[in-house]
């Protein structure tokens, strides 16, 4: 793909992994009978994510979502579903904490190039877009804790 005139950081923001997951989101579907579900809104831009969980004991056997949002939000939701499927609830909670902490001011998170989630690392440089990346994860957190309700990243 050619992006004449596009600055390097823009290409970093919209890496191939991000564009790929936003165009072809994985696990994008509604679960008919979820054990847990939650919906999150980004009041600033109108993004909306619903996360559905199918549990096997304490394990997240089935993680799916429906989302309407920007490329960052869509890619983040897609990558998230791949990351947390099969994890126990405490493991998933730690994965959420670790992902969200990447975007804390002054975060020294080491972006392992082998980690698909590192494709979203550059979002750190765009404060107004961080909530686009964290919305699916905060919604997952609400779903795991069994809060049937809505969360907002604003």
């Amino acid at each position, binding site marked *: *793909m050619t*992006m004449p005139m*596009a600055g390097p950081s823009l290409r970093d923001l919209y890496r191939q992994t991000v*564009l790929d997951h936003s165009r072809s989101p994985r696990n994008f579907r509604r679960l008919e009978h979820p054990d847990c579900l939650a919906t999150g809104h980004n009041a600033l*831009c*109108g993004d*909306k994510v619903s996360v559905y969980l199918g549990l096997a004991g304490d394990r997240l056997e089935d993680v799916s979502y429906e989302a*309407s949002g*920007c490329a960052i939000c869509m890619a983040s939701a897609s990558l998230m579903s791949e990351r947390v499927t099969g994890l126990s609830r405490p493991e998933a909670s730690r994965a959420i904490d670790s992902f969200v902490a990447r975007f804390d001011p002054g975060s020294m998170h080491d972006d392992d190039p082998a980690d698909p989630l590192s494709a979203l690392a550059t979002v750190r440089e765009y404060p107004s*877009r961080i909530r686009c990346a964290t919305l699916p994860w905060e919604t997952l957190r609400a779903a795991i804790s069994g809060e049937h309700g809505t969360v907002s990243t604003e």
Partner: protein
Amino acid sequence: MSIAARDVASASLLDVAAVRRDFPVLDQEINGHPLAYLDNAASYQRPTQVIDAIAHYYRHDHANVHRGVHTLSHRATEAYEGARDKVQRFINAQSRREIIFTRGTTESINLIAAALGSQLSAGDEVVITHLEHHSNIVPWQLLCESRGILLKVVPINSQGEIELDRYFDLLGPRTRLVSVAQVSNALGTVLPLQTIIAAARERDILVLVDGAQGIAHQPVDVQTLDCDFYAFSGHKMCGPTGIGVLYARESILQTLPPWQGGGDMIRTVSFSGSTWNDLPYRFEAGTPNIAGAIGLGAAIDYLENIGIQQIAEHERRLLEYGEAALADVPGLRIIGTAMEKVSVISFDIEGIHPHDLGTVLDHQGVAIRAGHHCAMPVMEFFGVAGTARASFAFYNTTGEIDQLRSAIDQAIVMFR
């Protein structure tokens, strides 16, 4: 109200290069590109004349108003009240007692919702349109909850114009107020105010006009409009943020109770009761935004010096040029294609979320607004979560619109 500039064939052309020199903020690079500031519907930039007026006031004249016998207080009061006189002249109000300074359009509308709302009873109706900004929806919804009034909404068509026939049908015996935008912030639609107001006046219904998006684009004459209230913000007409105006017809204002209590709005205070100050001070409790009012006055001087007709004519050309420039972008749909529009182009592009577009455009130095524009019902009507919105001011150029087009082309290469 029609755009008066269209009737003025002889409007001379604006010297945009000269105008731009008055706006220091425009002269900078963003991400290695010249800034193209096309987010004027959100907030205008300020000319040096306004910045200097505020700085001069703080450097030389600041004191509290209406209080001291000393020289600075006298100067501050003269400057503050002088700004009120400028506003009165600018919108041709009959009296300076009809000009209330507020924090902005939102507070102006809330003032009326509080003061007039206290006189409404369950079952009374307020009519708004589907085009309104949240600030002309939510204050009335709060009244629905607190006083049991009913909110009626005039629908719109697929061009983003209100359906006038439905408006006439909504006016009934319990309608107490019609509260409408002069111009839609999300789409740029100019509403047919003359028809709207005439129909309400015939039925003795009060009319509030939300002029936030109208004031900088066309001459406003509240006596010709014949509205009862007209609200606008300083920052959408080259003035400071945090200052706005509520114009209210004096005969109506006399009948409204105060909405905030405090200093300046009283004549006497005792523990057995207080008496209220004269208009407009009764509605200005506490130390006002003195510098803001002075800055607004300077903005009025500035706009009048350029000429609102010239501004309207230049913006009309920019709108025409912009619509043509975007016409053949693949997958681009302009949302809001009313016959009467100001220089706002709201659009979406297939396969590109407005938020992503906004970020890519920023990398090309182009500032636009992406989102729901505080008009979620409008977005819902058109079935979109948000739009990208380019809004042009009199200091924008066709070159900046070319820059917008080129940046959009870059985004399409990236996301398709």
